[in-house]
Each structure stands twice: as C-alpha cells, then as structure tokens.
C-alpha cells in the first residue's frame, strides 16, 4: 500500500527532478567517500607505490626499483625470522584464545548468577591500556623479583627468564596476547550464545539429547557458526598485527627472538627510515590480512550461514 503510494508520487516526476535527487545523494555521501579516500585508500595506495621505490625519509631523490625490495625481503634473514615468529605467535594466540573464550563463555552462560561479574572480569584486559598492562607483566614475569618465578621457586622449580631468554620470550608474549584477546572473544561468544533460541535447546532435550556434549554438537556449535567465524577472523587479524607488547616489553629481542612483522616494519621505517623497504613489509602484511578476509567471505561464510 505504502509502496504503491510512493510509486504513484514518483511517476510524474521530471527527469531534472530525478537528476537533482541523484546529485543530492552524491552530495550526502561526499563526507564518507572523501574521508574513505583521504584516510584509507590514498595512504594504502601510497604505501603500495612506495614498496616499489628506494625512498628513505629525508632522501633527496626517489627511484623506482621494481621488485628489488621484495628480492631483498626474500634474502633478509631478519625478515624471515620476523615472519616465522608472527606465524608462531598467531598459531598459539588464535586457537588458544578462541577455544579458551568459547569454554569460558559456555561456563559463564551456564551460571545462574554472577554472569555480569565474570563478563566484566574477563573483559577488563580489553579496556585496559596495553602499555600500562605491559609494565605490569614486566614486573610479574621478572626473573628475580617477579611473583611468577617466586611462586615457582617455592615449589622447587627454577623459573626461566621469561622475557629475556630467546627460548621463552615468544611464549610469554603469546600468553599475554591470549590474556588480552580472550576477554574480547568471550564477549563476542556470549553475545552469540544469547542469540541461540532457547526453544532449540528444549527441542533437543525432548528429542532425547542427554549429555552437554551432544547438546553442544547438535545445537550450540552449529548455531554459533557465524559468531565463531567472525571471532576467528578478527582474532587472527588482531594477532597478526600485534605490536605494542613487543615494542614495550622486548623491542623484538633478545636476538630477534620476539621480532614480529609489524615491529620489523616499524624499525625499518622509523628507526632506519627505509620507508620503501618498510612499505614492502606492509604490503606483505596487507596480503596476509586480505587472504584471511577472503578465506572468511569466500570459503567459510557459506558453511556457517544456513539461509
């Protein structure tokens, strides 16, 4: 009825009127389009272009060097270590923080009281200042005065130098990464859980589902699919671009054992001012992130939406 009315008022409109409406529409999207171009598209394009030059900050000249930066990257042992560290870091943080958050969300969801409290407790790391928290971690994990090693000493174990030994530094950073990501993922999972219709759980019960595991398999896990997919993507992207804990706690050390992609990019660009080379690393980073997003939209999305 209202559609018909709208059509009736639209029909007699002149061509000029329609053009005017198109123009108004364009004008209205202008702020958004402009900020998208200026803040996102242009810098990305500039970075892509820079990746094919030898530009250094303050250098008088800039030269197109084609794929030379990438050839250097392939040879650069430092970059390879950084790439491998990043993959290891993501390989630990993503599965652990996703599985841990899901387990915690299921536990909190099953509570009859205190849900808000636990949700807040686990969400705290997300809203706290990463740099300030890093300082706290530095104290906690300090080899001699830190409480973690003091506790280990009490039960007769000589704790390692968590953040200063090349054997443990990446693990320690990954643990901090999990601690930061788990609260965020937890809140997403809790939201996903509340969106599952209660009647489905009841139907499962009437259909003969007795154990919590069967209920999880039949109802919770499939219906959590879209949430899980989102959590997986966002966690991987967030852990690929980890930077601040590394910058504050280890500066990539000792001996590059905790150097990650974004930190390498930062040192190349802002310590050595090799902006062209840094841009090439950025491009590698961008390709990884885009590949992850493609994986979400093209492959997994079809398997978790049952529309």
């Amino acid at each position: 009825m209202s559609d018909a009315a709208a059509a009736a008022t639209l029909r007699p409109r002149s061509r000029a009127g329609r053009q005017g409406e198109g123009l108004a529409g364009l004008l209205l999207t202008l702020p958004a389009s402009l900020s998208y171009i200026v803040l996102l598209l242009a810098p990305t394009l500039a970075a892509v272009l820079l990746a094919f030059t030898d530009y250094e900050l303050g250098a008088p000249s800039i030269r197109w060097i084609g794929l030379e930066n990438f050839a250097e990257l392939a040879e650069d042992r430092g970059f390879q270590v950084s790439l491998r560290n990043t993959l290891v870091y993501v390989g630990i943080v993503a599965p652990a923080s996703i599985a841990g958050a899901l387990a915690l969300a299921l536990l909190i969801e099953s509570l009859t009281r205190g849900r808000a409290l636990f949700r807040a407790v686990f969400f705290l790391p997300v809203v706290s200042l990463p740099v300030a928290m890093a300082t706290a971690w530095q104290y906690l994990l300090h080899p001699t005065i830190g409480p973690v090693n003091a506790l280990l000493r009490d039960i007769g174990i000589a704790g390692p130098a968590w953040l200063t030994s090349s054997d443990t530094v990446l693990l320690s950073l990954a643990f901090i990464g999990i601690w930061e990501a788990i609260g965020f993922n937890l809140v997403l999972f809790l939201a996903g859980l509340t969106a599952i219709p209660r009647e489905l759980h009841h139907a499962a019960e009437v259909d003969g589902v007795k154990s919590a595991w069967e209920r999880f398999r039949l109802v919770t896990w499939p219906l959590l699919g879209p949430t899980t997919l989102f959590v997986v993507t966002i966690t991987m992207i967030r852990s690929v671009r980890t930077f601040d804990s590394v910058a504050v706690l280890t500066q990539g050390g000792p001996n590059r054992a905790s150097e990650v992609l974004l930190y390498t990019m930062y040192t190349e660009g802002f310590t050595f001012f090799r902006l062209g080379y840094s841009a090439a690393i950025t491009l590698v980073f961008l390709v990884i992130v885009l590949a992850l997003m493609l994986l979400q939209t093209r492959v997994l999305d079809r398997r978790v939406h049952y529309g």
Partner: protein
Amino acid sequence: MAGITIQTVTKRFGSVTALAGVSLDVQPGEFVALVGPSGCGKTTLMRIVAGIERADSGRIGIAGRDVTDLRAADRDVAMVFQSYALYPHLTVAQNIAVPLLMRRLSAAQRLPLIGAVWPGSRAARRAIRQDAAQAAAALGLGTMLDRRPAQLSGGQRQRVALARAIVRSPKAFLMDEPLSNLDAALRVQTRREIVEIHRRVGAATLYVTHDQTEALTMADRVAVMLGGEILQVDSPDRIYADPQDLRVATFIGSPRINTLPVEARADGAVTFDGEPLGLGTPAQGALTLALRPEDLRPDPAGPLQAVAEHVEFLGESLLLHGRVGRGETPVTLRLLRGSLVPQAAFRLAFAPERALLFDPEGRRAPLRQAAHADV
C-alpha cells in the same frame, strides 16, 4: 492407565502463581485441547509435562509411569513447538532423524567420524534414514528431504516439526500453539491434518492453544484454563452449552455470551428489573443470567424490553447489538440472514432450556423453567 496424568501441579515464578494445583488426565488415543487466554499458565503446564520446566509440587505420569523426576530426554514425549524449533543447519531428513539418532544409536555410534564405522552403526543409520523418509512422506515432504528449514515455507516447516514428533511413535504428544504462525487459510487445512495425524498415531495428545475455535473443532475434550486453574474439562459441545463456571461461559463463544444481572425472589422466581422471566431457582439474591447470542430472538410476547443500536453483517448471519432493561445492559443477538431486524425498541425472548444461571461466585446455579411461572 492414562496416557498423560497431571496431578495437582503447582508452579510459582517469584510472587506470581502460574499454576495453582492443576490436575488433568489424557487417555491413550485421546486429543485434549488446553485452551485459555495468554498468560493463563497453559504453556507452563505443557513445558512441565514435557520436562523442560520443573513443577514446585505435584506429579506427572506418562503411560502409567511416574516421570516427575525424569528429565525431558527420558520421558518419551514428543513436542511440537510454537516456533517449530527446527535445527537450521540440518536438512529436512536430518531434522526428522534427530530423535531416532538420539534413541537408537549408542553414544559411541554417535561420535563424529568414528561413529560412522562403529559396529552396527551403518545398519542402524540406514534404518533411521528409511524411517525418517517414511515420516516425511506421510506429511507430503517426500520431495524436500534435502532442503534446509530456511528454504521452506511456514506450512512446510510446521510439517517438518510434526514429522520429527511422530517419527518415533511417542507415548505422549504435546503441541504448543502449532498453528499460531500460519496464515488463516493454511490454519484451517492444517487443523484437519493434525487431527488425522493424531488418529493415525494414536498417542495421548495435549494441545495448547489460545484459539477456542481450534480447541472446539479439534479436541475430544477441552480443558479451559484461566488464571492458573483448570475450570472445566468436557467435550466441546458441553463446554459450549453447559459451562460450569461463568468465566468458562464468557471465555468460550464468539461473540461473547450475554450476561444479565438478575434477582431471585423469595418464591424462587428469577426476575430482571423486577419482572419475572419465567424461570425458577432455589438460589437466592443477586445472580447472573447468561444467554448465548443465538438463543435470543425478537418476539412481541418476550419478557425483556430492548433497544436496537447497530447491526453487523457476517454473511450467513448478522449480529444485532443493543441494550436491554433499565440498567441498559448491553446485549447481542445472532439473527439468521433475512430475518426481520428490529429498528428501535422491541421485545426480546430467549430459549429458556438454554439459559444458564450463575451465582455471585460464578458457579452454576440450578434453574427450573416455568416451574414458578410468572404469576
């Protein structure tokens, strides 16, 4: 041995009493409709029978077995939910097969990957697939086995929910407003189909609805529930013609039954505005006389003085709304098409054998017609 036994079940939510000691028996093969306005506790009662909710006190029996302390999965009841509650990620065939998978396969046989090759699993799964396909075919879903719920219409989803319920031949069958999400035309058709399915399955069926038409047309017996109490359980025609409580009389029937404030004189004659109506009762004092709209007719010799106000045309009949007596009590008459419709003041008669009398507490009061004829 009853199909479903409900014994003095009570349930409170905080300070609200949802069920105040409800008892009801459904015989094997019987179809009982539980009807009442929303919020009367009927869905709560059904969920307690299913085992989804716990009663505060009282017992529940299914097929002669006390299941009060059993969980839903162990009760052997099937339920059709208002929202259908289909598993959105499973196909029609898989949805229907779920109750069979859960009951016929061992926990090991249900494991992912390993379960498929576990001894006996393949034969059992094949039998389940066949049974599910059979249940689907019985409901005309034979060509939709591989579709997902999202690809089905509302009516088709409803059939899948029904097929999932009948596939394992349950002892008791619970339906929670299964038709309320369908459009009107489909509702009438599905109503008959559900009755047919019930006849074929033969399980004790408890059917919750707020729609009295559904209750009266489908059920063997109707239980009228109001305010957490079952007021009357009777056959549809007795619920309509012989209500034992004024609340039942006013809830059942559309348009609403007419209620007239009347007085019983010392000699037992029932009077309205001081005029005797040709009815007698042993009850005393202020009473309520209830008359169905179709039991009233304009009649120059009638005992009531009425004023016509407006007419509603319904097709096969029409409704005449007006007022009766000095107190201007509203009254509605159902007249056959083509009847002479009074324009202003007219005399009103009623069928005395169908008149219903209720005491101030709303209980039925005995009525003798013409025993104390208007002297």
